[in-house]
């Protein structure tokens, strides 16, 4: 699998796909795209990388633990839903919007970013754990 062509292509594609995934995430509210697809696209970039590189290298590259990334995404999504109730006393997950110049920014974007993180984290966890299970936590081993 680990051919020269795949390796060199990945080098170029990896960054391109990641940039594309963020673009997909950001345009999602008005055009086809969004956090879920964006996350999946980013996951393909990482999957490609996992194919050609050692899982250890991938973990080193990503730095953040994928599972924690997914959890952080979930937390972000929940927090974005709390902004409405706290600021305006509106129901949980109500969208709150501000206009900065011509750009509208709202809590649904935060929510979508949370979805993005969850998808990337979860898929990366699957792929990495299958390729090489991480070390079990010390308390978990009952040898």
């Amino acid at each position, binding site marked *: *699998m680990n051919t020269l062509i795949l390796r060199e292509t990945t080098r170029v594609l990896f960054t391109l796909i990641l940039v594309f995934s963020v673009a997909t995430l950001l345009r*999602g*509210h*008005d*055009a*086809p*795209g*969004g*956090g*879920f*697809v964006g996350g*999946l*696209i980013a*996951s*393909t970039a990482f*999957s*490609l990388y*996992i*194919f050609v590189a050692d899982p250890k290298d991938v973990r080193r590259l990503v730095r953040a633990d*994928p*599972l924690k990334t*997914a*959890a952080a*995404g*979930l937390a972000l*999504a*929940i927090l974005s*839903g709390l902004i409405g109730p706290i600021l305006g006393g509106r129901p*949980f*997950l109500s*969208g709150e*919007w501000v206009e900065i110049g011509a750009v*509208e920014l*709202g809590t*649904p*974007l935060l*929510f*979508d970013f*949370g*979805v993005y993180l*969850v*998808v990337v*984290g*979860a*898929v990366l*966890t*699957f*792929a990495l*754990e*299958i*390729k090489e*299970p*991480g*070390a*079990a*936590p010390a308390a*978990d*081993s009952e*040898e």
Partner: protein
Amino acid sequence: MPALGVPTERVPALLRASIALPAALFAWFCSLVPRVSSGETLHWEIGWIPQQGIALSFFIDGLSLLFALVITGIGTLIVHYASEYMRGLPQLPRFTAFLLAFMLSMLGLVLADNLIALFIFWELTGLTSFLLIGYKHEDPAARRAALQALLVTGVGALAMLAGFVLLGETAGTYSLRELLAGDASLAEASHYPWILGLVLAGAFTKSAQFPLHFWLPNAMVAPTPVSAYLHSATMVKAGVFLLARMSPVLGGTEAWSVTLVGFGAVTAVYSALASVTRTDLKQVLAYTTVMALGTCVMFLGLPGEAAGAAHSTSAVAAMAFILVHALYKAALFMAVGTIEHSTGTRDIARHGGLRHVLGPTFVGTALAAVSMAGLPPFIGFVGKELLYSSAYESAFGGFALFAIVAASVLIVTAAMLVAVVPFFGTMKQSARDAHPVTWQLWIGSLLLGLLGLVAGVATTPVFQGLVLPAAAAIAPVPEHFEPGLWHGFNSLLLLSLATWATGAFFFWLRPYILSVPGALLDRLPVSGDRAYDATMDGIARFSTALTRHMQSGIQSRYIRAVFATLALSVGATLVAKDAIHLPSQIPSVTFGEWTLVAVISASVLTVILSRSRLLAICALGVVGTAVSLIFLLRGAPDVAMTQLIVETLVVVIVAIVLLKLPDFRNEIRQPLSERWRDAAIAVAVGSVTSLVLLAVTAQPPQLELTEYFESMAVPGAHGHNVVNDILVDFRAMDTLGEISVLVLAAAAVCALLRRRTRYRVDRFHRLQRRYAAGPDRARASEEDA
């Protein structure tokens, strides 16, 4: 008692500080006595699930106030006692937390207005009881007793919930106050037998009625403060409380009277007999508790002379007996705990002469035991006279009187067993080894013993303030009701004299006769305890057999089973509902779509015919990609995009999985016959799915939602992509649920894969063998406890 953990001085201090809660509550409830005894009902309400009419509402009348005072008053003494009794044992903060959690649940139970809320509190008391019985969780007997208590009372509680729902739907309200205020007896309702049976199932299991009483003596493995509090003074009375509460609604019928008097009388006599045959002090007390519960149940069921009307003096007698019993039983349990704490044993035969060592405990025990035996001038005497007179006056006069007298005789014997044998006689080894105890260990029983005396002397205020208001919640109390210590020489007094004499006579003869009923009871062909074991074993064996049958561990079989079931059930539904609509004409298909159909067909053939797994997976990916292109052609770019990426990822991840499998062979070696069978299942699933889609699209489309989302997308969600607006705004709650599942799945993958595979498989097989050999038969026999 050996110190099992590292004692810290801080922990008992914490425990003692936690007395503040029950003490404050007790003081507050005491302050309510004048208002409630004048006939007022206090009421609070907090909305909970208003859509379903379920409110967290509480009310206090005489009945709930009597119970609340017992719960908080004895709770104060017990927490104080436990702070010394449990000193040095591990996990004391947890123990205290459980104890206080129990107290609050129990308070919620007796104060709840809503039936559903009452059920929740009922279950909470069962749960905290489970945790407290199983406090010494290293001990298999404790674990078994905890589980047994939880299951027996839990099954009863579920029946009770069903009864509550039937009751609420029949009466049209779940509020106890409204039920009681409406004076609508449900005796004429068509569901009455079901309601009665189900509610009684809950009450009888909780209050340990024969033959489901067995969990209560087993629960004596709990630390003694727990036995004193939960399993004599409060929790086991929940069933009695429920019967008293329900009496105006469900009572007054023949079914009610016969069932309650029957179960109550059998329970009272049986357990009074069992109590005197025990040699463990706590077991003696446990069985006398069961006797008290049976007595209360019996007197709540006694009909009056006039058929139909609830019998008011028997309600007074039952409420008085609850107070009497709570006072003397908690005192005796604390005294027995002190004996065990000081000497290390609860075996009656090994004690003697303890009065020289444990003086104050002896005084407390003696006072409580005299009240238990029903001697004047203690409150126990008043209680027993009331029981005798109301049994005598009731419609079941002879039977009820016989049962209560027989039980009382044996209770006199039991009281002497507990109060005389350990303390009098020559000093035995245990008394010489006994170490003196601090005041915390005897003050509780002494106080309660004295209270029994004070309440006996000051009968009128006690009855006016507590007992009569409680009884008034059950049945109208006769005017000018004057209980007293002295009613002159009459036949009932003679009966009391005979009771004491016979009880003492049995006690005197105990070396010769008490072994006889014990041997008889042990030879009973059926016992609840053994039936419980048989049921549990049966369930375990059944599930083992079922698991062996269903769980082959071979993935392809599971998938076959799932798909075959899907095809069969959906197909059968389609046929049964006559929902198969074949389109009358084939819709026009463009050239591009025909091309995609050709690609899909070729890929499917490749999947079926390929002898290489990797090739099959890739071909499957092509199928998915072509389908996503159809989505694109039909104007669903978001779905197409997602589908495309998912297909790509699936191929990549499956490829990673396949390459990592330890004995991966790319070549597929499957007999042709199996392939044909799988193909048949696949075709069936595909056809059924197509038919369902055809049936759905044959219906006229419902466009309301579509129109709503389209019109609200920009003004409501500030976005032009309706799909995304739905995902992150309109239906964001659904998305939140989905991504939560995703995170959980990722965590599960970590949990499953982060172990050495070999080790996991070995452990799994070991566990499987252990379960196949049958469940843990560790048995907490009462004699060993």
